[in-house]
Structures are given as structure tokens and as C-alpha cells.
């Protein structure tokens, strides 16, 4: 450059500006206005946050206030006599004993109706017998699960002042309940079955354990597939991939897969895993595969971010002392990036854990009353369970739904807490 800038730039010929009159009235007014705007803006920001937080609080409050009752159930006390003959009357062996008839009879005898206890109340008797075979022939007082109507009344959900037509329970039931109350043979207890059973058509017997196991199996499949492949993909893209067509296609694929609506993955699972490969419906295997494909890009992206956040200077340093590429990655890059990768993985997986839509399409909305024992067995998962229950008309399912949501949120929150913990613990400032 031939330096044209100089002489004309120097001060001499420049017009002088009159100094700004900072203390003039106009200027002072202007400044006051600016400060007012400042305060307003700041308020809006805070308001937005408070609103968002308020909504969260409201949501949690609603769910907890409904849901905590899902962890309770009404029980009625029945005097049961374990009469061997009756138990074995039909099947001929204790193993296939018929507790149901036994209980029905006792109920009828003691309360005049079977309707105070749940359809599945007899299960309690079987448990007792299994715990203590010596009970055979004895009589004992057993707290069995109450019927939905009794449950409602026990939890105070029934407005007795309403006329019978507009109540969920008829007068007869109300009477029965009053009797129970008077004889102290009804109580509210912790609903242990909720955490140990699978789905059921009757709300008082429905539990989340089956769905939880389903979720865990599904997530294990997801993790087993998406984590290694995701990390390897990320490592390949960040550290190895040459800039070429194929790499570009991979990059575009991943970025887009990350934002493809989850339901599309459901369609994919349906078309490929179920229809093309003929894998079993409703199985954690297929659900896990589908979710793995969905989670893969999340992990890849998180892992790439983590890998990118490893300062290149460290790689240079390692290369500079003569480390090979694989050594650079395994000795320096991965250890440093691992917390980030794990965090991303947990977040991806916890999203998969809350995912519903794609699983609906691959048949996991099926009613499954057994606790799954393998990845190929029919199963449902927590969110789907929630969805299913939320559709149920029975009054008892509302609190069950909320309770299931609480379980799901607890799982998710603890996973997120783990992620945050990891992130904070290993967060590094360069």
C-alpha cells in the first residue's frame, strides 16, 4: 500500500465538533427515558422466566396432587378360612388352587356382597399361602384390595350429598362402605402392588412394574446399540473423516436425523423391523432398535461437540511427541471428552425413555399384563403405559396415570441429575 492515508487523516483540517452537552436538559431527559426502557426490558425477561417456572410448578403440582393417591389403595379386612377342599376343588392341586371362589364366599358371608373387594383381591390370599403354607385350614384376618368404588369413597372422592344418579357409586355401595367404616374394616395403605405389578384392566390392580421393566429392557437395547455406534461415528467424523462427498452425506444425515420427528422413526420401525424383517411386535427389541436409531444422532452430535471441545492444542501436543492417531484419540481425546459424551448419552437416552409416539406405531401400546422377561417378549413402556391409562375411562386410572407420571419423572430426573452432576464434575475450563 502506498500510504495514501496519512496527511489528510491528521487532525488539522478536520472540523471540530462542539463538545457534547451532557448536562443539558434534553440529554438528561433522554437518559431518564433510556433507563426506564432498561427497567421495563429487564422486567419482561424476569416475567418470562417466572411464567415458565410457574408453569412447571403448576404442572408438577397438578400431577403430584393427583398422583400421590395412586400410591395408596383402600383395603378391606376379610376373615378368611383356608379350606383345603375348596381350594383344590376344581384343579385338584394347591398349586392351581382357586382362591377366588374362596374369597368370594367369605366376602359374601361377611359383607353380603363381593363388591367391596377388588376382582383381584384373591391374589393376596395366594401370597399369604405361599408365604406360610401352614395357614392351610386356619382362619385369619386378611387385608385385601378394595374395589374401585370403595377405593374412591375411602379416598374421599365421592360426594355423598349428591343424588345417586350423579354419583359414581350407587346407594347400596355407599351403605356397604358405611358398614365397613363402622366396623373399622377398611383402611388406606401403601399400594405396594403399584410398584410390583404390571398393567391390569382394573385400576386398583394396575401397576407400573411391567412397564418399568419394559422401559429398562428397551433402553438397554437402545444403549447397547446407539452408544458404541454413536461414539465411533463421532470419532470417525471428528478425527478421521476426510472432507469428501460421503462424509458430507453422513454429516447431513446425522444432523437431519436428529431433528426428524420421532414418529417418523416409528414409521421406519414399522416398515423395516416389523414388516420387512418380521420381528416380533410389541417387543423391547424392536422398540429398543427404533429408539436406538432415534438416539444415535443425539449421541453422535453430543459426542462430536464433546470431541470438538477438546482443544486441538492437546491433539497437536500429543502428535508433537510422536503419538499415533489412535493413541491421540484413546489417550487424550476420549478421556477428556468422555464426560461430555456420557452427558449427551444420558440426555439422549432419557429422551428415548420418555418417548411414546414411535412405540405406539410398533405395537407397544398393546395391553400387556405380564412382566416381560426378555427382549423379545411383548412389553410396554412407561410413557406408553401413561398414554394408555390416560385414555381409560375408569376414575381410578386418573390417579394411576399421575402416579405413573411421577415414577417416570423420578426416573428421568434422576438421570438428568446424573448428567448434570457429571457435567459439573468434569466441566473443564481451558
Amino acid at each position, binding site marked *: 500500500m502506498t500510504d*495514501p*492515508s496519512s496527511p489528510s487523516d491528521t487532525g488539522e483540517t478536520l472540523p471540530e*465538533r462542539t463538545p*457534547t452537552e451532557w448536562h443539558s436538559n434534553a440529554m438528561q431527559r433522554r437518559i431518564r427515558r*433510556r433507563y426506564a426502557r432498561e427497567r421495563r426490558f429487564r422486567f419482561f425477561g424476569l416475567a418470562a422466566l417466572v411464567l415458565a417456572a410457574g408453569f412447571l410448578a403448576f404442572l408438577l403440582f397438578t400431577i403430584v396432587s393427583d398422583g400421590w393417591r395412586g400410591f395408596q389403595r383402600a383395603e378391606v379386612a376379610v376373615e378368611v378360612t383356608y379350606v383345603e377342599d375348596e381350594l383344590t376343588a376344581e384343579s385338584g392341586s394347591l398349586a392351581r388352587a382357586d382362591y377366588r371362589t374362596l374369597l368370594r364366599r367369605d366376602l359374601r358371608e361377611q359383607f353380603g356382597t363381593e363388591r367391596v373387594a377388588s376382582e383381584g383381591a384373591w391374589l393376596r390370599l395366594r401370597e399369604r399361602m405361599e408365604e406360610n403354607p401352614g395357614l392351610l385350614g386356619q382362619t385369619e384376618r386378611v387385608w385385601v384390595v378394595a374395589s374401585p368404588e370403595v377405593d374412591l369413597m375411602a379416598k374421599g372422592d365421592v360426594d355423598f350429598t349428591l343424588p345417586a344418579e350423579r354419583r359414581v357409586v350407587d346407594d347400596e355401595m355407599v351403605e356397604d362402605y358405611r358398614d365397613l367404616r363402622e366396623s373399622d374394616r377398611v383402611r388406606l395403605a401403601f399400594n405396594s402392588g403399584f410398584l410390583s405389578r404390571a398393567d391390569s384392566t382394573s385400576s386398583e390392580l394396575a401397576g407400573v412394574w411391567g412397564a418399568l421393566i419394559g422401559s429398562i429392557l428397551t433402553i438397554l437395547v437402545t444403549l447397547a446399540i446407539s452408544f458404541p455406534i454413536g461414539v465411533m461415528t463421532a470419532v470417525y467424523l471428528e478425527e478421521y473423516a476426510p472432507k469428501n462427498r460421503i462424509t458430507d452425506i453422513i454429516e447431513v444425515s446425522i444432523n437431519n436425523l436428529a431433528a426428524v420427528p420421532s414418529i417418523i422413526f416409528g414409521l421406519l420401525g414399522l416398515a423395516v423391523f416389523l414388516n420387512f424383517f418380521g420381528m416380533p411386535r410389541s417387543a423391547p427389541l424392536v422398540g429398543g432398535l427404533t429408539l436406538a436409531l432415534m438416539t444415535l444422532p443425539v449421541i453422535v452430535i453430543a459426542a462430536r461437540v464433546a470431541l470438538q471441545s477438546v482443544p486441538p492444542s492437546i491433539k497437536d501436543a500429543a502428535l508433537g511427541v510422536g503419538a499415533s492417531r489412535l493413541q491421540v484419540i484413546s489417550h487424550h481425546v476420549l478421556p477428556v471428552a468422555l464426560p461430555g459424551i456420557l452427558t449427551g448419552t444420558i440426555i439422549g437416552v432419557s429422551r428415548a425413555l420418555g418417548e411414546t409416539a414411535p412405540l405406539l406405531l410398533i405395537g407397544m401400546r398393546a395391553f400387556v399384563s405380564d412382566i416381560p422377561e426378555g427382549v423379545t417378549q411383548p412389553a410396554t413402556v412407561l410413557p406408553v403405559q401413561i398414554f394408555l391409562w390416560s385414555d381409560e375411562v375408569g376414575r381410578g386410572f386418573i390417579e394411576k396415570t399421575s402416579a405413573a407420571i411421577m415414577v417416570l419423572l423420578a426416573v428421568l430426573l434422576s438421570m438428568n441429575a446424573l448428567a448434570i452432576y457429571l457435567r459439573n464434575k468434569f466441566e473443564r475450563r481451558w
Partner: protein
Amino acid sequence: MAEYDTETVVHEEMTLRNDAKMTARDVSVFYGQKQAVRSVSIDVDSHYVTAFIGPSGCGKSTFLRCFNRMNDTIDIARVEGDIDLDGRDIYDPKMDVVQLRARVGMVFQKPNPFPKSIYENIAYGPRIHGLAESKTDMDRIVETSLQRAGLWNEVKDRLDESGTALSGGQQQRLCIARAIAVDPEVILMDEPCSALDPIATAKVEELIDELQGRYAIVIVTHNMQQAARVSQRTAFFHLGHLVEYGPTDEIFTNPKADRTRDYITGRFG
């Protein structure tokens, strides 16, 4: 490390007056419990470039940022003592920070043009302060500022291009022009050339040289030669203390304090 006494050496012609452009009296700055600046008193004159030198972490930047209260943006920073601008205490609660910062401009270590056009970069300050009545007014301000910053000829044909598209040295001069545009009285510069290569540095130094006299300029630098080149007054800081303050020529050829001598001749640490 040798033992030094901690008394400040102020050269005769530098004895403190209260009619200087900016005066700092017994200024201390704390970050939480930690004291970063220890009771420093100094005058900044309108007609001179004042350089702050000293080893890393001695509190130069911290002290500099007191002059336009940029330390306010750091939660844990606390400033004690008086700093006056034209005799008015700038830490007075009634003092308006927004105005103060318009009067005491700042140029940072790394050039930080706004990602807007060159024109908008310059017009930003005048606009928020309402200094231009009209478009032509604004055009004039932009032109003069760029001219003073010695950048006009280089950019006059591309005022619409983004400020970030300029080279490092040009960006730094743009930042100076931007500071000039709000018609400040003092310009603070915190290591304005440390991100630049020698050629860009030379150009910025040239600019500082030309601005000298029109603005009170305070510059923090790690480069002793740079301090020697561009400034007329030099203050040497050490461990938060002001060790010596005097005319640059004196400081660099015949410093009075042992610490200063050891630092500028490279005998430190």
C-alpha cells in the same frame, strides 16, 4: 526475589494536582477478599498518552477499568477511593454510568467490532446517545471519526461491508474510531495491540500518536518498547502498587525505583 520498598516514586514534574483530566486518589480494588489494586493515586492529563506497565496480574487492567467503571460488570469487584473526571467523583451514586462511559471511551485487547456494517459500527454510539440530529449529521460524525482514526481512506468505499471483514489492525482502528465517535474526553486502551502482528501494531501506534493531545489516552501494555514509543507518561505497577510514575523518557532511560529498573531491564522474577 529481591526486597523492595513499597513507596511510590513520583517524579517531580508529576506531583499530584487536582486540575488534571482524571485523578485517582487512594484507589483500591478488591475482588472478593483479594486486593488487586492497593491505594493508587495518579493523574491522567489531557495532553498526554499515559502508559501503564507492570508484570502480569499486577492490577493494570483492573485499575484501568476503574476509570470508566467497567469493573461494575464484575459482580465481586469492589472499588474504594476517589476517581474524579474533571473534578467530579465518578463513583458518586449520582454519577450516571452511561454518560460516564460515553465520556471515557474504551478500546479492548482483542478488536471487537460489532457484526454490523462499518458505518453502523461508528454510528452506534452517537445513535444511542442521540448525538446526531439528522442523517447528514451522522454521516459527518462517521466520516470525521474514521478520518481521525486514519481509516477513512481505507474504508470509505465500503462503509456497508461488515466491520468483522476488516483485517485485525483495521478492526482495532475501527474500534478506536467507534470510541472517538461519541466524542469522549478520555480513551482507555487495554493492551490494544497484543492481538495484532507487528505491522498492524505499528499502524495502531501511529494512530495513538496522532490522537495524542486531542484526547487523554491511557494505554496498558506488556510491550515495554511500545510504552516507550507511544507514551509521554509511564506508570509502573507491581503487586497492585503504583511503584513509579513519571515522564516516559525518564522511566525508560533512568528509572528511580529499583523495582522499575529491574522490571524494564529484565531482571524480574
